[in-house]
């Protein structure tokens, strides 16, 4: 057995102090297997050592919450005896190294997190971020490396086909998400996968090992040498130089077919009543599942590695414990009822092998060929893993507060051109090229699929609608992390509300650079504060999520990028509305219209998509969302939808009101005539991204009733215009400003992304 050298410790990304702590815990030198186990369990990815102290501040309680953070997924009660389990997780580093498998296994991992809770997955969403896919355009804040659009397109294509490969075969619809392009993601693409499942409330399963003497059963795929140290070497350090190639062996390889079998077999096995606890083997594989299940159950687990199904001969205990081979689960069954479990797995042609037993002593004990190769207290690996309150320092702004370009008054023609330019920007344009590669309809529940504010699923069991949205804005958070995080929560929640659904709970994926840098920790601190403030104000608890640090290459970090996934429920799915203008002659109203000063406008305009796409610049601050008003606007919108007054609803976000109106025209080719009042600044009116505003359409004779209800919320309602015609007509102070045919806008909007990606 090799003795542990300082070099070996360093290779395992453990600092000398951490190694000292290991010696104290064990009271002896660790074996090489134990060193490996500590290294993965104490990695940033598994231990949350830099983020834990901050995450504690997030609100996690709420009337709907059945299970908060700490389990494989959060669970909320949707009524009628059903719950839904959902979570988001990052697979950023693997997706950079090997886009197809990295993204595919990201989806596979989050699906297992859902069905390990006893819930059948019914939806996937993905939040994706890449470097620019077009050669020309905004080059990023000062100091950004040159854009390599060809490279970014390659990563995008690989990620999308990886997600399609996994989700389509597994048989769960991919119903929404986002795709964003910014220079900072060029060497650090973000792939955040979200999944949601439903279960009966009395049939939830947890990752707990209970009952000393019960058998510990390994099910699913065989263990191979793939993905060893994925969590510690890939996800817990930054990239440099040629890492992209060299780290490829650390990426796992996924098999969605096997996972589909595993899903069916696990859900069936759970129904037998013989399963005590179950957990998937994700990051840190067998190591993580054994010590966490023991930890949560207040017990220990002893396993014999010879019994672990292996893909090849001669694997060492180190390799078996650290392998991240996919599509594997660990479960604890009632002693005497194992056969019921085996029977199910045999039917589905899967391995199910007793590899150990639950023991009283709260340790993880590993044997190979009968010899003890590791024995570590569970707590040492989980609860007592190092926690750092890392230094925090606010960084110097690298972009100015005031406009770096002069904002001229624009003519009508120029404004029309600006609108077309925005509609064809990859971040705003239709994501059809991406989502048509996903099966968005399997399971026949998709009432509203991709391309809307939120996706909406029909829950066949209860007749309800489940709305869900993923939102984040790295640019906002780069300019002001706290404001940006508040906006992410507000927008995600607003997107759920505009369907008519009431937001119930959130999951979050926090993507950041190197936490050892004080300015990155400052961003993290601020973002957590922003999320906390917004979640408290909007009464949306966080039920779980994931932190991804070290999104850096050669010392350059990404924009701080929190992504919020919010789930809401609608009592009757039929009562939802979509963003599309359904017919001509409707009055277009703006709920929550508010005025900001010219000075404030000039500062916040620098965070907008307009500044980036049209002016090719960035400055200032993101809007400061008024959470009280936000809450009222959303509640009011939901009430109006429930009252049946509203025919369509769409929130104002990227690209401002002009883009929002255009998007509403496309679905049924119904145009609009819009009047900008004389006291407004057309540029601001059209393209400012002020939050807390929702555009709705109502019949003319219901405008008064709508205003009355809005009045109860103390909200103003502005009449924007009417629907109709086959163009978007904008007038200012009763004079025509510009008119653009729907066909022209739609053509650009629909084809821009494909044109950019398919370029060789």
């Amino acid at each position, binding site marked *: 057995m090799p003795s542990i050298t300082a070099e070996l410790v360093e290779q395992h990304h453990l600092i000398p102090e951490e190694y000292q702590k290991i010696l104290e815990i064990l009271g002896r030198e660790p074996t090489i297997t134990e060193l490996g186990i500590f290294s993965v369990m104490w990695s940033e990815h598994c231990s949350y050592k830099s983020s834990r102290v901050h995450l504690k501040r997030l609100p996690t309680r709420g009337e709907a919450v059945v299970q908060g953070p700490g389990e494989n997924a959060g669970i909320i009660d949707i009524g009628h005896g059903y719950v839904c389990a959902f979570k988001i997780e990052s697979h950023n580093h693997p997706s950079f190294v090997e886009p197809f498998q990295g993204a595919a296994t990201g989806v596979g991992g989050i699906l297992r997190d859902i069905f390990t809770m006893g819930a059948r997955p019914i939806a996937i969403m993905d939040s994706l971020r890449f470097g620019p896919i077009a050669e020309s355009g905004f080059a990023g804040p000062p100091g950004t490396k040159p854009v390599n659009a060809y490279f970014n397109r390659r990563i995008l294509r690989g990620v999308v*086909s990886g997600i*399609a490969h996994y989700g*389509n*075969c*597994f*048989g769960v619809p991919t119903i929404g998400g986002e795709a964003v392009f910014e220079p900072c993601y060029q060497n650090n693409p973000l792939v955040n996968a979200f999944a949601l499942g439903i279960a009966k409330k009395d049939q939830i399963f947890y990752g707990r090992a209970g009952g000393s003497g019960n058998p510990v059963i390994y099910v699913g795929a065989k263990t191979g040498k793939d993905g060893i140290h994925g969590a510690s070497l890939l996800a817990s350090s930054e990239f440099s130089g040629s890492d992209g190639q060299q780290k490829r062996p650390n990426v796992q390889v996924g*098999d*969605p*077919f*096997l996972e*589909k*079998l595993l899903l069916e077999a696990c859900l069936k096995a759970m129904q037998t009543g013989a399963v005590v606890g179950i957990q998937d083997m994700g990051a840190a594989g067998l190591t993580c599942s054994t010590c966490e299940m023991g930890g949560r159950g207040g017990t220990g687990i002893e396993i014999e590695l010879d019994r672990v199904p292996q893909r090849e001969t001669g694997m060492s205990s180190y390799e078996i414990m650290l392998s991240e081979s996919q599509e594997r689960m660990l479960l604890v069954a009632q002693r005497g009822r194992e056969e019921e479990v085996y029977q199910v797995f045999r039917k*589905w*042609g899967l391995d199910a092998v007793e590899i150990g037993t639950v023991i009283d002593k709260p340790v993880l004990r590993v044997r190979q060929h009968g010899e003890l190769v590791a024995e570590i207290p569970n707590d040492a690996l989980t609860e007592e893993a190092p926690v750092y309150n890392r230094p925090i320092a606010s960084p110097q702004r690298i972009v100015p507060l005031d406009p770096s370009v002069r904002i001229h008054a624009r003519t009508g023609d120029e404004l029309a051109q600006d609108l077309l330019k925005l509609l064809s920007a990859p971040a705003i344009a239709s994501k059809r090229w991406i*989502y*048509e*590669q*996903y*099966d*968005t*309809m*399997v*399971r*026949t*529940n*998709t*009432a509203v699929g991709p391309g809307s504010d939120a996706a909406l699923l*029909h829950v*066949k069991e209860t007749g309800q609608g489940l709305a869900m949205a993923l939102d984040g804005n790295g640019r906002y958070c780069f300019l002001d992390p706290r404001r940006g995080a508040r906006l992410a929560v507000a927008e995600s929640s607003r997107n759920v509300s505009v369907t008519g659904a009431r937001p119930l709970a959130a999951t979050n994926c926090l993507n950041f650079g190197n936490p050892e840098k004080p300015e990155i920790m400052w961003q993290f601190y601020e973002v957590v504060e922003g999320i906390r403030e917004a979640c408290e104000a909007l009464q949306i608890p966080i039920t779980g999520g994931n932190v991804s640090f070290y999104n850096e290459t050669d010392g350059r970090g990404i924009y701080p990028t929190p992504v919020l996934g919010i789930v809401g429920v609608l009592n009757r*799915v*039929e009562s939802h509305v979509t963003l599309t203008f359904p017919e001509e002659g409707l009055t277009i109203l703006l709920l929550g219209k508010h005025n900001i000063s010219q000075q404030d406008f000039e500062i916040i305009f620098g965070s907008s998509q307009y500044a980036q796409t049209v002016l090719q610049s960035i400055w200032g601050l993101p809007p400061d969302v008024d959470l009280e008003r936000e809450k009222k606007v959303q509640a009011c919108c939901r009430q109006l939808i429930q009252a049946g007054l509203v025919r369509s609803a769409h929130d104002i976000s990227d690209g401002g009101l002009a883009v929002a109106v255009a998007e509403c025209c496309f679905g049924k080719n119904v145009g609009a005539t819009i009047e900008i009042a004389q006291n407004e600044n057309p540029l601001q009116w059209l393209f400012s991204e002020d939050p807390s505003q929702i555009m709705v359409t109502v019949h003319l004779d219901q405008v008064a009733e709508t205003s009355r209800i809005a009045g109860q919320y103390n909200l103003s309602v502005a009449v924007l215009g009417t629907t109709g015609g086959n163009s978007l007509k904008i007038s200012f102070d009763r004079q025509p400003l510009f008119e653009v045919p729907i066909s022209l806008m739609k053509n650009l909007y629909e084809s821009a992304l494909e044109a950019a990606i398919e370029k060789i």
Partner: protein
Amino acid sequence: MKFGVVVFPGSNCDHDAYCAAEIMGQEAQFLWHESRDLQGSDVVILPGGFSYGDYLRTGAIARFAPILSSIKEFASRGGLVIGICNGFQILLEAGLLPGAMLRNRNLKFICRQVNIRVENAFTSFTNACSERQVLQVPIAHAEGNYFADPDTLIGLENSGQIVFRYCTPSGEITPEANPNGSLNNIAGIMSRKGNVLGMMPHPERACNPLLGSSDGRLIFASLIRAISLMGASKPELIKAR
């Protein structure tokens, strides 16, 4: 009337087909791939999905499943079989229908609503439709680019075996309306005897207006009508033109 829905490892539209039968007020049952018992099903549905992971080729392994020998026998006696998406691919591999599938023209998985035109309304699968009726039904596949040699194709055309073609919303058969590159815009074909249908679009996904279309119901309604006409003795089916 009983709809038997085959479950292969990797089937993922099995529940959807089951639900569609229920929506139509019919009884549905799952048929396990390792069984040879069709459990008295009046119609057998081979559902969409990735049977056996679609390893080797789509449908290539499923043709060896024990249940397939029973289905072949059922079909030879005139029993009604419908293969949807992966089910169509399996029927081709099993030799119950002629031709083969290639990867989609753009080499990508495509999921979207498409329009298909009923080319033959005198079949057990389309008798509730009118001739040339345009149906909106979604597709979701990576290999739906139908191919057959020229003689087979002429045979299919001449004997009315082409049941659905991809078309524009107004029913024109154009290259632009063809999502995957299928020869002659073929979306669905049936056997010479007219009792086995394979189609790439998913009628089971078009049975609820909430999901965008309920045109798929016409296909299930046709099957129900065909079976009730067949009665208990299961005589020869309504002939193809």
